[in-house]
């Protein structure tokens, strides 16, 4: 199969899976918290239940917003996985220059992920 076809397929699957997960989490969240009042007027930073260390346990407790967050993380990961597939595709074509370019872009995102916490 051509790499373009795989990448196209991958993007579509990534988007619809993550939206499906977010929808599921959203339903759980709404049935539990639907009648509470919203307050987003001030920025509060990262809530506890989605902090990296707590996310998985929150999901197992079936907390709606944690499940939504998993869907969103999957959505953000979709273009990143696309890059990995592109790198494999260039390697298969023996286009090592572009394999390197793709890995460089992946490296920048990784750097952003590791240094983005401060502030």
């Amino acid at each position, binding site marked *: 199969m051509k790499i*373009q*076809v795989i*990448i*196209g397929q991958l*993007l*579509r699957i*990534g*988007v619809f899976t*993550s*939206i499906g997960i*977010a*929808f599921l*989490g*959203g339903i759980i*969240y*709404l049935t539990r*918290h*639907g*009648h*509470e*009042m*919203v307050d*987003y*007027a*001030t*920025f*509060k*930073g*990262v*809530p506890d239940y*989605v902090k990296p260390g707590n996310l998985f346990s929150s999901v197992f407790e079936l907390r709606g*917003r*944690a499940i*939504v*967050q998993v*869907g*969103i*993380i999957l*959505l*953000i*990961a*979709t*273009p*990143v996985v*696309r*890059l990995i597939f*592109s790198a494999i595709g260039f390697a298969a074509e023996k286009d090592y*220059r*572009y394999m390197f*370019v*793709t890995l460089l*872009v992946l490296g*920048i*995102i990784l*750097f*952003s*992920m590791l240094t*983005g*916490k401060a*502030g």
Partner: protein
Amino acid sequence: MTVLTFTLILLAGAYAAGLLGSLTGLGGGFVVIPLLTLALGVDIHYAIGASLVSAIATSSGSAAAYVKEGITNMRLGIFLEIATTIGAFTGAVLAAFIPAHFIAILFGTVLICSAIISLKKKSNEVNLKKSYLAEKLKLDGNFPEAGGFVAYRVVNVVGGFGMMIVAGIISGILGIGSGALKVVAMDGVMRIPFKVSTTTSNFMIGVTAAASAVVYLQRGYIDPAICMPVVIGVVLGALSGSKILVRTASAAWLKYLFAGIILILAIQMIYNGILGRV
């Protein structure tokens, strides 16, 4: 307002945003951010987080189709992603230090510029002038058209790369795909045919946004309860938009109507930003 009402308003608004965004080619964020900040009183940091996530969804969803058709120039896209991801990271880090009302003013200004760019006549003119760097980087390509494949060459790689860094910074600060700026870099600076530059720009938005989204995530800009209705609404709206687009491709007055709506939103954002109400 209860959570349920808030979610339903947001879902409907995001649907309209996705529809408008796909018809104008400007993306959903341009309506989502004013909707959240001006109409629902949400802090702008949450608004840019939700907008960015929706940009990833629409970009990935529509890129899937274009990549298969072979219009997207993947080498060009990936090469320029070096510039946009560096810019996006810088922008996301800067966003924490920029006061909210300034973000609103910048947003309005970028919105006006993008609307003007989107109204400009698009040429599918094909450049055949050679460039050493473009040849070395294998950026020249071809795209399918009715009569077969049309070959084109790319010029001014350095200028385009620089412009892409700017597009990335703006995307990282404002949480938008900044597709219009990417098209300017490719269309105006690098002389790439319009068909190729729009699809390649769209292809790049996902990766660019991911570079700033990983920062947003860790800083709490991405709130699941806000993102959920926004992403679902924008994606459904964009899907409807792509169906309408096929049928009413020649309706020029629609474009002007949308540009008018966007202009009003932009002025609202700037006005409220200056008054410090955002």
